[in-house]
């Protein structure tokens, strides 16, 4: 089953002018006509398909359009051309800390984050214990998370996100969460989701991570696909097993 079908995707950004203008500047710009906008094509004719049960890696240098592609699949940005069809519930882990509130306890944050990921209160309650157990933070449920280390926060977010039963999981750079032990565990969790029919799109410029986890890799160069194929020595480290 195809989870993601992207055809001929085009995305432009208008840059070269002040992103957020003051009302007066805007007013002058509109009426004087001196509002120079430079269009930059970030993605140019990208076509990708991802099936359920597949982990796709997206590689590329900074500015090659990886994160933009991820945001387009997540529905955060709107494309300027082409088609994106997705099937199933999408969870995006792009900026891990965005949904958390520092001054709230871990319990409150789980409920907040869970609702951002589209779960009802009852669903969160049902999975609450699993989320906490998986993150291995049982002792800190009532602790405010500004006292958490980065690793702890990442574990928390990863745990909430993967317990929302996503059909499509989008991960930007941040996959390797926590210490060695937890890395193995999170790899296992991803594999479990994939075996149950989800698909994962993983963006990274770290070749090792891509090789370790992905079945297939797409390499983006200046917004175009340079390479799209299986990884020769995929899963050679077999951490997922």
């Amino acid at each position, binding site marked *: 089953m195809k989870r993601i079908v992207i055809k001929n995707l085009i995305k432009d950004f208008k840059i070269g002018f002040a992103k*957020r*203008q003051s*009302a007066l500047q805007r007013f002058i710009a509109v009426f004087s006509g001196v509002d120079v906008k430079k269009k930059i094509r970030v993605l140019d004719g990208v076509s990708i398909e991802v099936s359920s049960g597949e982990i796709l890696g997206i590689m590329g240098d900074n500015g090659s359009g990886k994160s933009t592609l991820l945001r387009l699949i997540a529905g*955060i940005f709107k494309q300027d051309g082409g088609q994106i069809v997705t099937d199933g519930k999408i969870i995006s882990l*792009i900026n891990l*800390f*965005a949904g958390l509130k520092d001054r709230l306890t871990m319990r409150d944050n789980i409920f*907040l984050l869970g*609702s*951002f990921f589209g779960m009802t209160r009852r669903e969160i309650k049902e999975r609450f214990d699993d989320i906490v157990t998986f993150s291995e933070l049982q002792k800190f449920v009532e602790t405010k998370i500004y006292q958490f280390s980065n690793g702890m926060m990442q574990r928390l977010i990863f745990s909430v996100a993967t317990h929302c039963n996503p059909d499509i999981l989008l991960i930007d750079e941040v996959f390797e969460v926590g210490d060695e032990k937890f890395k193995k565990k999170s790899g296992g969790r991803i594999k479990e989701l994939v075996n149950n029919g989800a698909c994962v799109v993983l963006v990274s410029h770290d070749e090792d991570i891509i090789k370790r986890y992905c079945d297939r890799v797409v390499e983006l160069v200046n917004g175009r696909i340079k390479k799209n194929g299986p990884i020769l020595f995929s899963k050679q480290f077999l951490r997922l097993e």
Partner: protein
Amino acid sequence: MKIKKKIINLLVLSLELAKAEFKLRNEGSYLGVLWYLLNPLLSFSLLFLVFSDRLGGDIKNYSAYLFLGIIMFNFFQGTTLEAVKSIISENNHLVKSLNFPREALIISVVIKGLFSHLLEVCLFFIFSFFWAQNPFLIFFYLFLLILFVPFVYGVCLMLSSLTVYFVDLENIWNFAVRIIWLATPIFYAIESQTRLFYLNLANPMYYFIETARSVVIYGQLPRGWIIYGVVAFALLFLGAGQFVFGKLKTKIPELV
């Protein structure tokens, strides 16, 4: 079915957000909920001291007149001022990294505002016993809220999405709200001032406050055209807000 699920998700998320914000605001505060009442109480005392003999001298039951005006405007002012910066400065990272119904950010602001507003309404109820007026008329105010809340929500939707395009809208609105506060008959009556009266015909807050006062303080329905005004402004701003926000929301993540 799908739409129903979407709406439920939106409301669940809005409530969670409002709850979280509420907890954050009361974190480590000793007076807690009392803070919500302090602001209207202080402005009321001050304005009452200054104006009760002069501007308010001819107004029947001036204390109730003034207090009701203050708390209604407070709700409008507090909520819109928070909404105007809600997306651009408080949730910009969030909007860029997660796809969730953006309206939730605004609805949560309105829920929070409504909560403190209802506390103020309770205070009004208690005060009514001392002001020798029928305290139970305030319950009719809840019906007006059915129109007043959508109006405020509509204004919030417009402001929050437009700020992304016009960055100093935040400052402009800060200023504009103060002008509206002075132009709306909150601590004075308008009947004798023709120019101000005509100006206020374009001021939605005038219609809402006037209706509330007629019903809650004087126990009578307002004049017909004021009721039409209330309904029209509520629908107009709700519709316009939805329209503007709907048009702009897909571009917001690219601009913040």
